[in-house]
């Protein structure tokens, strides 16, 4: 059992995370601090939420990049709308309105994919462009820094606080709870529901999934709706954490998020992927970001490093398969 756990993809990613942290910590001891831990987690929260939303789609074999645009569209539109109304309340209404919009955006995409049997990636490419265009054309083209009274202090609302020798008072933001709740929910959905198993089934062999009696279109719709809602939550959370709402939020990030999911062991062709792996993949990318800053390596190196790790990781299954084939031959020949 233990031996099996050690051979999993998640464990390898975890080892890389630990090794990387050790190296960075030795070069710059400032890395081993509570504040680094809290900051890394804070920066990861929205990526956790978004990637947990995209993971079920990828397991079913659909590659989406429009989630970032949904995050931007729902959060920015909600903010500008409430600002016009003179809303001064708390964050909750933001999540509800944006969440509902995200749900609709997800269902729209699901409708296009299931009704017309279109490839997910093509639809998402169109919607990615469309939602950003919608923001810039109808809502506004500049970032907005005016927050309602009830949400101003939210960026510094901490779950736990600690004293850090380097930076003084530091805290872990409460929205980490959202990421954890979402993660547990998606994990449960994938492992313990017929919908979740259906996602794996569709990603494994769509024809057989249909023949076996999975309600394939319904399962797709659920996955798209979930992606839409979680993207909206991530967009709003990002707005409050950074204290401004941006019409082109995350516009350069969709591939970084997908990279995290793939690093975490999900297959772009579907059928494979875990919540734990995805979380570790997202964390790894965040730590690489930080590590390069703390060790004084130019930031430009970040993309190169992530790229190299991705190349290595995407080749691992192929190398393993080759070795397994050779081993099988040898045992038969022995």
């Amino acid at each position: 059992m233990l031996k099996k756990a050690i051979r999993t993809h998640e464990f390898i990613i975890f080892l890389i995370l630990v090794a990387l942290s050790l190296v960075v910590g030795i070069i710059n001891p400032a890395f081993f601090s509570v504040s680094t831990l809290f900051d890394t987690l804070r920066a990861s929260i929205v990526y956790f939420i978004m990637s947990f939303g995209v993971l079920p789609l990828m397991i079913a074999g659909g590659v989406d990049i429009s989630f970032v645009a949904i995050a931007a569209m729902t959060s920015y539109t909600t903010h500008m709308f409430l600002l016009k109304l003179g809303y001064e309340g708390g964050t909750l209404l933001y999540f509800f309105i944006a969440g509902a919009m995200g749900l609709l955006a997800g269902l729209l995409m699901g409708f296009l994919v299931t009704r017309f049997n279109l490839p997910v990636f093509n639809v998402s490419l169109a919607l990615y462009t469309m939602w950003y265009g919608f923001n810039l054309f109808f809502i506004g083209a500049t970032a907005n820094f005016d927050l309602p009274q009830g949400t101003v202090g939210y960026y510094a609302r901490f779950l736990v606080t600690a004293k850090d020798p380097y930076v003084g008072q530091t805290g872990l933001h409460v929205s980490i709870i959202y990421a954890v709740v979402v993660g547990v929910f998606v994990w449960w959905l994938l492992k313990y529901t017929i919908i979740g198993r259906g996602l794996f089934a569709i990603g494994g062999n769509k024809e057989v999934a249909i023949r076996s009696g999975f309600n394939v279109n319904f399962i797709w719709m659920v996955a798209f709706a979930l992606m839409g809602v979680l993207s909206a939550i991530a967009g709003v959370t990002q707005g409050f954490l950074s204290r401004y709402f941006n019409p082109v939020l995350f516009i350069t990030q969709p591939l970084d998020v997908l990279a995290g999911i793939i690093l975490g062991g999900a297959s772009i062709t579907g059928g494979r992927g875990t919540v734990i792996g995805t979380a570790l993949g997202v964390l790894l990318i965040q730590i690489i970001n930080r590590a390069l800053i703390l060790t004084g390596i130019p930031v430009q190196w970040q993309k190169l490093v992530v790229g190299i790790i991705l190349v290595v990781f995407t080749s691992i299954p192929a190398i393993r398969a080759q070795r397994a084939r050779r081993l099988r031959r040898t045992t038969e020949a022995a």
Partner: protein
Amino acid sequence: MAEDLLRAEHISKRFGGVVALDDVSLTIRAGEICCLVGENGSGKSTMIKIISGVYTPDEGDIYINGHHYKRLTPIEAIHEGIQVIYQDFSLFPNLTVAENIAINELLASGKQVVDWKEVEQIAREGLARINASLPLDAVVETLPAADRQLIAIIKALLANARIIIMDEPTTALTQREIQALFNVIRELKQRGLAILFVSHKLNEVMEIADRTVIFRNGKKVLDQGAAGLDIPTMAYYMTGRRLDTSAVTFEKIDETAPPLLRVEGLTLHGGFYDVSFELKAHEVLGVTGLLGSGRTELALSLFGALPADAGRIFIEGKEVVIRSITDAVAHGIGYVPEDRIREGLFLDQPIADNITVTLIERFLRRLGLLDLRTKSAEAERWIRHLEVKTPSGELPVKTLSGGNQQRVVLAKWIARSPKVLILNGPTVGVDVGSKVEIHELIRQLAHQGMGILLISDDIPELMQTCHRILLMRAGRIAREFRREEITEQALNAELVAAATVESR
């Protein structure tokens, strides 16, 4: 007399202007293994789809367990206990054995939440039904075809099947696995299930059938107990002609001539060890052995796809180095792969382009442009020469039947006039009629002076084409036979003996 579980009476089915089935009746009885035999296009697939509810017949009646159906839906067929095991086994490659077995039951229960203990329990019960033991948490794609087939059978049993239809079930199996499958089938028969075994491998039909039904061109031409039926009779009913294989003339080989291909001590670690042989012009040399005996690796190695780790290769007396497919092609070696769909053809591309792809540099003009007229003329020549049955060379290859597709693969390599042609399972999945023609073609090629290395585990095929046969076992050449020194039965026994040695 056993109980009739299913009677399909006077079934006719047309697709557009094509008559797929013409007034055909079929009875399936409890505790009986009925073999349905026919060439590609004979209507056997249509019949399977009609009795499983996928197609609605234009005319005729279906009676199952005494219920009368004019039109049968797939759901009704399943409720009546009809289960079809297709060639792809209909499994999820990325899920575990347990989940694959249990998935239908889970879906049928209508529950939305998965209880993994229940999944495991269903899987255990399923395995117990055929006394199989498979690792429950293994991912299905890591299992061999035989195990995946067992899972498909278990799924059918768990769905309360009374009639199990197996569509070409032995295609992906080795000899040993086929025997294991037959044991399972006989076991199911003992328990009163009806098996409809659909195949065109006549030696298997001989072995397993209680009753044999043969279709030809949409008509039933034979329906009788297996006793007293022999392979030539079945082949006659299948093809409508006498396939005379006894009077085959073999090309004479000049024994004193220097060998075309000589291999010395060729070794690929994990594949084969210390393989040496000679191949002369005009000679057909068979290489046989079980899956995993190294035969396919040897072929791929000579073709440069899996370059050997040690050993020497000589062509026409000169030593050559083959490190890549390009090297092999340059030295005049051609290769017809085992899996023509995946490795041998561009299915969506025109037949003509598939044939000329290996010759493409011959049609280059100045500026690197292609001379399309010469190219299509060359393709037409090969289509005629090899009698590929198609209205036009511009149609995609996937419109052809298996036998004709195989001709296109052959044409592609023969067109280059290689000195040595390696054929890996050239008639796998090809019906009897085309098979005989492909054998004739192999003999013709040898007549023209090519040296042919034929990798196959089809013993009659080896006996009808090869001058010599090498038997591989555990990566080494275990025996060498001259065709005239051995009989089919003896060769079969050698092959099975190899199986028992390896399974230890």
